[in-house]
């Protein structure tokens, strides 16, 4: 059906051609869900774009064969290629928020697609569209079809996107990270839908994803890619269960298991190498440990935002982001805070750091009450004691400052080290402590990869000599192997310095690996809180049970034999 042979795609650039993918071979049969997995830069999306003929300019197919059934996709004229798109090959994009035209109704978008490929009347097209929406799980479709995209929730929108992709009965759908932007529950529904469509309609899917759990759950066959080349391909059970290629094995090692805790991830380059010890930065940090371990207690934190004003006479409805949140982070422990998007995790972090002012409730750091947001002076000690590692290492470091400036700023600002040369030395030592070369200090953030930047961000937090560290989704922007490295680093540092950490994540498996205690947040309320083992193994709240059940996991047998915890 879809046959790819020796496919190479090149991007001409001013320094010669850049080869995005090279010698890729792949076949997908009707009704088959073919997983295409790899980390960022692997070239998996390029494969999809090459197949559908939408390589972003100036990329071009350098050589190889591409055919769909009997059609040679490489010899098509632009017009022919455009006709095939939608008709025989369709595509689903990652983010349902951005893949629908916000100015057109669902009806307009569906019908224009149907009419573009088959000569049907408006009424027939409409009927087909409504039936399709019903089939895909949108209730009351005849009415809802008149709506605009923004009137649908994320999951529903992704259903609409799928409906648009299949409304012309294509033979092949390229699904590029179709569930990455979705919450666990919705992800599960969408994956079910894909599975059903493949089975019932015999549509072939090329499922591009970085999430091995998803592949394990629904892919019939899988191709593992790295740096534009295919590493391994075959039946899913075979490739993931008994990986032959070392890369596949390393990838599997880096996947955090949900059902048990491992001590450290096995990371290829780092085998047998523990954290750097005995350097100046470590000594300096340990010196600063005169204080006892410090915990954090939150009591009845509420956070209400003013809603949008809709009428002159009515008061706007407040939007409740946090509702009576109480929790305790025990001194020297890690509390995992899990929740889906919009559950209020980040709001809570902002309230603790003083970026926003809670509507009510008491926060205590150790035995001292933390003043709320605006009441917290710029010189308040908590500004130094509480530090944060942010989600996006690309935006958490000021791209116009050198690493030197970024790292020495806390030393200078909090008045720890008066001498500029000393500060720089300490910053360099700290870089070493987090596993980087000290000469990185002269560079700018954009000269580093995401994982390296996150290490720098950790170093910056440590240079403030914090007692309490908030990690807000510290690995969700990173590839799984990098995630493993960072998680290892955090574990090591916590062990060394006895930091108290609030670890926020939407990824249950990561929390399982990191947290001593776990709190589950949903719509601004704590659903469940307790020791991590008890929450994961004996969840009491229905919500927690549901979450755990829906999270895609690797079958036990495939799981790596990494050091068990």
């Amino acid at each position, binding site marked *: 059906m879809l046959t790819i042979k020796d496919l190479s795609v090149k991007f001409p650039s001013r320094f010669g051609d850049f080869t995005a993918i090279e010698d890729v071979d792949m076949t997908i049969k009707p009704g088959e869900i073919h997983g295409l997995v790899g980390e960022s830069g692997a070239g998996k999306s390029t494969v999809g774009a090459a197949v559908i003929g939408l390589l972003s300019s100036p990329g071009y197919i350098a050589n190889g064969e591409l055919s769909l059934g009997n059609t040679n996709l490489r010899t098509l004229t632009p017009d022919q290629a455009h006709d095939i798109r939608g008709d025989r090959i369709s595509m689903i994009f990652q983010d349902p928020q951005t893949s629908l035209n916000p100015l057109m109704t669902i009806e307009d978008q569906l019908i224009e697609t149907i009419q573009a490929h088959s000569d049907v009347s408006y009424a027939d097209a409409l009927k087909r569209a409504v039936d399709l929406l019903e089939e895909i799980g949108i209730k009351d479709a005849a009415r809802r079809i008149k709506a605009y995209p923004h009137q649908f929730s994320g999951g529903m929108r992704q259903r609409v996107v799928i409906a648009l992709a299949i409304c012309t009965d294509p033979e092949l759908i390229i699904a590029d990270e179709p569930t990455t932007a979705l919450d666990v529950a919705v992800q599960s529904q969408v994956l079910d839908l894909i599975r059903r469509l493949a089975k019932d309609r015999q549509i072939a899917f090329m499922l591009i994803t970085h999430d091995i759990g998803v592949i394990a759950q629904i892919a019939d066959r899988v191709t593992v890619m790295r740096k534009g080349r295919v590493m391994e391909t075959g039946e899913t059970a075979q490739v993931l269960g008994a990986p032959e290629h070392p890369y596949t094995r390393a990838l599997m090692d880096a996947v955090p298991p949900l059902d048990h805790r491992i001590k450290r991830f096995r990371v290829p380059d780092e085998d047998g190498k523990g954290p750097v010890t005995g350097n100046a930065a470590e000594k300096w940090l340990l010196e600063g440990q005169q204080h006892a371990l410090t915990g954090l207690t939150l009591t009845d934190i509420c956070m209400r935002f003013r809603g949008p004003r809709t009428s002159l006479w009515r008061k706007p409805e407040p939007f409740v982001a946090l509702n009576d949140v109480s929790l305790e982070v025990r001194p020297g422990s890690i509390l995992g805070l899990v929740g889906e998007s919009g559950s209020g995790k980040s709001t809570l972090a902002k309230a603790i750091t003083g970026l926003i002012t809670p509507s009510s409730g008491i926060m205590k750091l150790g035995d001292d009450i933390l003043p709320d947001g605006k009441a917290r002076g710029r010189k308040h000690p908590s500004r130094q004691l509480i530090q944060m590692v942010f989600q996006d290492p690309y935006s*958490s470091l000021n791209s116009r400052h050198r690493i030197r400036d970024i790292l020495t700023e806390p030393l200078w600002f909090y008045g720890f080290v008066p001498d500029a040369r000393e500060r720089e030395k300490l910053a360099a030592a700290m870089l070493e402590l987090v596993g980087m070369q000290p000469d990185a200090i002269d560079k700018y953030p954009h000269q580093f990869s995401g994982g390296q930047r996150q290490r720098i961000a950790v170093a910056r937090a440590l240079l403030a000599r914090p007692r309490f560290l908030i990690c807000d989704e510290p690995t969700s922007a990173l590839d799984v192997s990098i995630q493993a490295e960072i998680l290892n680093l955090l574990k090591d540092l916590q062990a060394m310095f006895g930091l108290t950490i609030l670890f926020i994540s939407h990824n249950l498996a990561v929390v399982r690996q990191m947290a001593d205690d776990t709190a589950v947040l949903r719509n601004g309320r704590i659903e469940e809180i307790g020791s991590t083992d008890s929450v994961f193994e004996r969840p009491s709240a229905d919500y927690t049970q549901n979450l755990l059940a829906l999270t895609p996991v690797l079958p036990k047998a495939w799981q790596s034999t990494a050091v068990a915890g």
Partner: protein
Amino acid sequence: MIAFIKRYEGLWLFFHSPAAMIAAVVAVLIILGAIFAPWLALVNPYDLASFSLFDGLLPPVWEEGSNPKYLLGTDDQGRDMISSILYGARLSLVIGLSALTIAAVLGVGLGLAAGYYGGRFDAIVMRIADIQLALPAILTALLIDGIARGILPAAVQQDVRVAVLTLAIALSLWVNFARTARASTFVQMNKEYVQAAIMMGQRPSRVMFVHILPNILGPLLVIMTVDLASAILLEATLSFLGIGLPADSPSLGTLIRIGMQFLLSGEWWILWIPTLFLVALVVSINILGDFLRDVFNPRLR
């Protein structure tokens, strides 16, 4: 390799864009000419004793009746065209650049603060911007001019005409900067490095100027080039309407205004040479602006 490309991308692009290079050469030549006008020019158009009406209305050398001393001819005052243009470009650039600086400082300051503080302060700044936008530049110029006349003693008014004009142009340009700075600041405010700085307890001024400002310079630089071009044109337009500079301290705009009188009289060079010069300068600046826009917004390439 990647790092190298990223770092020197702008430079690399520059040397592979003929338009940008030509524009830069033209702009640099004009700017150098303006800076070194006192040494390059034959006569000083400000020094009334240095030229004579005897030499008035001489055509450029390739026309009949010319004097080889004056390559591009003379105007109705006997001033050498080249000298007038060099000095005129100097004045135009001084006015344009100082207006730009004032506008940038005022606009970026207000825009940054509006974006940083948001809320009521933002609303007030934006209303002031609305008022400014509702007053066309010409009216602003009249207003400033008038107030200066009212406040300043007569003796210094002539000396401050340049300052008055500069201020008027600056006032009609600052809104652009304020809006851009504000919008960019809003974007940066959601960046985590800003939150980190605020969390640390850094002073708002430090957060704004040390952290945010370097990150929004790109779009501001683009506005600067485009607005430098409009400032020079605005000065010319104000001069045309008679609220610009007096004729004895000629800017490019004033030269064109004077030249307009000779549009039909046969002395074409008095109008068209300064006009050509102005257009060359403004086009060069605009091309450079386009180029910068491309560099700072690679998605548009």
